[in-house]
């Protein structure tokens, strides 16, 4: 036989796709070979999702072709893509919580008996085989998926893909909602898949992960193809400038500020059993980072301060006055703002206009004599849209139609319109692209300079380290460490988070 090089498992050639008025993809080429992890990078709206949808048969390209093992192939439906061996794991896992792990893995193609009923013993043993091939024997195939952690569910999704003989696995931001431990375990699984010759397309906003995991990385910008690099031959700075088309020299803006008077002081503040005896102080003009694993009580602490789950003990002083906050309404009146973790579930009224979302906390203020002052409302929204650089068709656009980063800016705008003294940010940049992220970081810095006290929760250590003046670390509902900006390192914070003590 000749020395012919094996063609890539999937090769996209000059793909273009338009939506009315929008060029979603233009002349994009991309390929992935057996046993390779190929990362796909780009800001939100760069065309990553569209490309994935073309590859998984949800959309059809207008130009260009898809080659599978070197053969041109038409993927008209997700089912055809599946049959071609392409499986996609979306950000929102598509599992049925009321069914067992095994049933989920074999959903739609469960082994049958000759009476055409489900062969349960076969189903369980095959599911077990697949899970053990992923080194995931710890997951009981008879458990309901609803009882599993997010990390375990993700591994079930991977098993499901393998049960369909997937040779190409597309993972859309798989680590977005995982804890550090789960991320590590997921990476082990991915490396195992790689060794078995599965081709993996990996999408993530976290550059660190891309370097840790990927062999090659391709960058998209505004629907166009920018380039492909070997991860061993590039660096974070280069990738970022390829993504945004400019160099971001300082990733985290940092102005030297002087902390003012104490804005918030918690004394033995608690909400049993979620958080216990918290003692912290936050000053005006200070950004305080709150770090911890998911479930450590960091979000719960924020929600207790904001009155969503009122405290069961201890005291809270705001600007030196002891106050009792029983509801978000009360917190709002006391000039506290809370940007929630989940922007679509808690932050925005999706079917409403930008303008209506922004004015929501201020409805009574802009309604003298009980009638909304339209002019005041419009001016407020316009001012905020300009100040926050919210890219939209205007005041009247429905927020559902905005990109993630712009939605997040609407939530921020809404809360800053209330002119808070204390701003609590829960994962302010989760799931938004690098450009918007930098903008939000710059804004935070500016707000702190204006004298707002900021408490920021984040799962991203670089963000915590880069933005905070001081850092609190929480574990199991308790503050376990306070670190100064200068002493804090990723290792130190991570150790405290996970309870590993140095010898």
């Amino acid at each position: 036989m000749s020395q012919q090089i094996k063609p890539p498992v999937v090769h996209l050639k000059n793909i273009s796709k338009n939506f009315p008025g929008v060029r979603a993809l233009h002349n994009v080429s991309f390929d992935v070979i057996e046993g390779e992890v190929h990362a796909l990078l780009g800001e939100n709206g760069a065309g990553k999702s569209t490309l994935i949808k073309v590859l998984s048969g949800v959309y059809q390209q207008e130009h260009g072709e898809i080659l599978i093992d070197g053969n041109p192939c038409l993927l008209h439906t997700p089912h055809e893509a599946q049959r071609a061996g392409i499986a996609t794991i979306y950000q929102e896992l598509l599992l049925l919580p009321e069914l067992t792990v095994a049933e989920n893995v074999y959903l739609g193609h469960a082994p049958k008996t000759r009476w055409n009923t489900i062969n349960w013993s076969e189903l369980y043993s095959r599911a077990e085989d697949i899970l053990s091939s992923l080194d995931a024997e710890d997951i009981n195939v008879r458990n309901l998926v609803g009882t599993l952690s997010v990390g375990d569910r993700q591994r079930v999704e991977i098993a499901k893909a393998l049960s369909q003989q997937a040779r190409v696995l597309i993972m859309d931001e798989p680590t977005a909602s995982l804890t550090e431990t789960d991320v590590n375990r997921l990476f082990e699984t991915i490396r195992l898949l790689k060794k078995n010759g599965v081709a993996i397309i990996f999408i993530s906003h976290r550059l660190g992960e891309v370097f840790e995991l990927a062999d090659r990385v391709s960058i998209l910008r505004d629907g166009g193809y920018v380039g492909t690099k070997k991860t061993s031959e590039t660096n974070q700075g280069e990738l970022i400038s390829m993504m945004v088309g400019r160099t971001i020299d300082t990733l985290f803006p940092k102005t030297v500020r002087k902390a003012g008077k104490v804005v918030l002081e918690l004394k033995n503040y608690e909400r049993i059993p979620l958080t216990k005896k918290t003692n912290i102080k936050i000053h005006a003009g200070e950004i305080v980072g709150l770090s911890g694993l998911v479930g450590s009580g960091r979000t719960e602490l924020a929600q207790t301060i904001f009155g969503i789950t009122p405290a069961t003990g201890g005291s809270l002083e705001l600007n030196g006055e002891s106050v009792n906050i029983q509801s978000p309404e009360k917190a709002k009146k006391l000039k506290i703002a809370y940007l929630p973790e989940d922007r679509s579930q808690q932050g925005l009224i999706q079917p409403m206009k930008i303008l209506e979302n922004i004015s929501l906390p201020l409805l009574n203020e802009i309604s003298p004599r009980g009638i909304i002052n339209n002019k005041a409302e419009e001016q407020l929204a316009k001012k905020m849209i300009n100040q926050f650089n919210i890219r939209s068709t205007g005041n009247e656009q429905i927020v559902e139609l905005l990109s993630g980063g712009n939605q997040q800016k609407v939530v921020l705008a809404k809360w800053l319109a209330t002119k808070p003294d204390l701003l609590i940010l829960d994962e302010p940049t989760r799931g938004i692209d690098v450009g918007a992220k930098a903008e939000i970081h710059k804004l935070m810095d500016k707000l702190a300079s204006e004298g707002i006290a900021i408490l920021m929760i984040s799962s991203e250590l670089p963000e915590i380290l880069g933005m905070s003046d001081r850092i609190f670390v929480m574990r199991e509902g308790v503050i376990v460490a306070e670190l100064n900006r200068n002493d804090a390192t990723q290792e130190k914070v991570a150790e405290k988070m996970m309870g590993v003590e140095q010898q």
Partner: protein
Amino acid sequence: MNNSLIIKKDTKSENTLQIFKTIIFNQEMVLLLSILFLLIVVGFINPRYVSNRNLISLFLGNAYIAVAAIGMSMVIISGNIDISVGSLIGVLATISGTIAEAGFPIWISWTIPLAIGMFINFVMGILVAYFRLPSIVVSLGFMSILKGGLIMFTGGAWISNLPDGYALSQLRPLGIPMPIYFMVILTTLTAYWMKMSPLGRSFYAVGGNSEAARLAGIQPKLTVLKVFILHGFFVGIASVLFSTQLSVIQSTVPPYLELTIITASVVGGVSILGGTGTVIGSTLAAVLLAAISSSMIFVNLSPFWLRSAQGLLILATVLADLYRRQRQLNK
């Protein structure tokens, strides 16, 4: 190729097109055009359909449905539903008639139904908002209680000894029947209020995303309770308009009344998922439904077609709504 054409579309003409599209695809406009279309087509087949007399009786007999649909629209916008509305109208109409027959002053027989309607909806609102029971279950329970109670107490007897001056709906200031005044004025005022008051806005916010509304300082439970009480007020008015239409009150629940009212809201553009819609839409839809029902007689169709027509209309509206949203999202 024509791709470049799509992309490089001149923004000005696109804007004009956009405005044109917004007007045309606006639910209210679609309904208005449908009503006009129906009047012209059926009027052409049978001119008696568009005679003054028929049009007035068409409004007279259906205005109360539009009034009840105002309240229903608020309930649906807030993310809830009320399927007991038909039974409540039956009960309140009977109470109104009974009070009038017993010789109490007429204004009492006109206002007591409002108070009782608000009270009953207050109880439902408490169960929905504070006990977190799904509104469909609560109102299903109330539907049975009210319907059963009505038959138990009246035994199905008609009320016919109504005093002079009771028949509010039969008054005709300036030659226009009273119910039309109620329908037009209440719809206009409520539409303005829903758009311009903080409370009206909060109905939309709670229906759109109750949790986000709560975090923004709105109290969703209290808001839902207020929605139900207001709904009770409109149901009260609707029941009086209904009971004073004829010179007898039948002491029964008009069949399918709740479905007609809910249909008016949904066809009027109120999203069944909550958060969007207007009462102008629901009133126009109530008029359209009435016009369809009346047209069947004039073109010699069996009135049994009416139910099917209503059903098709609901499906068509929801499908059109879904299609529109999908297209917006895919942009």
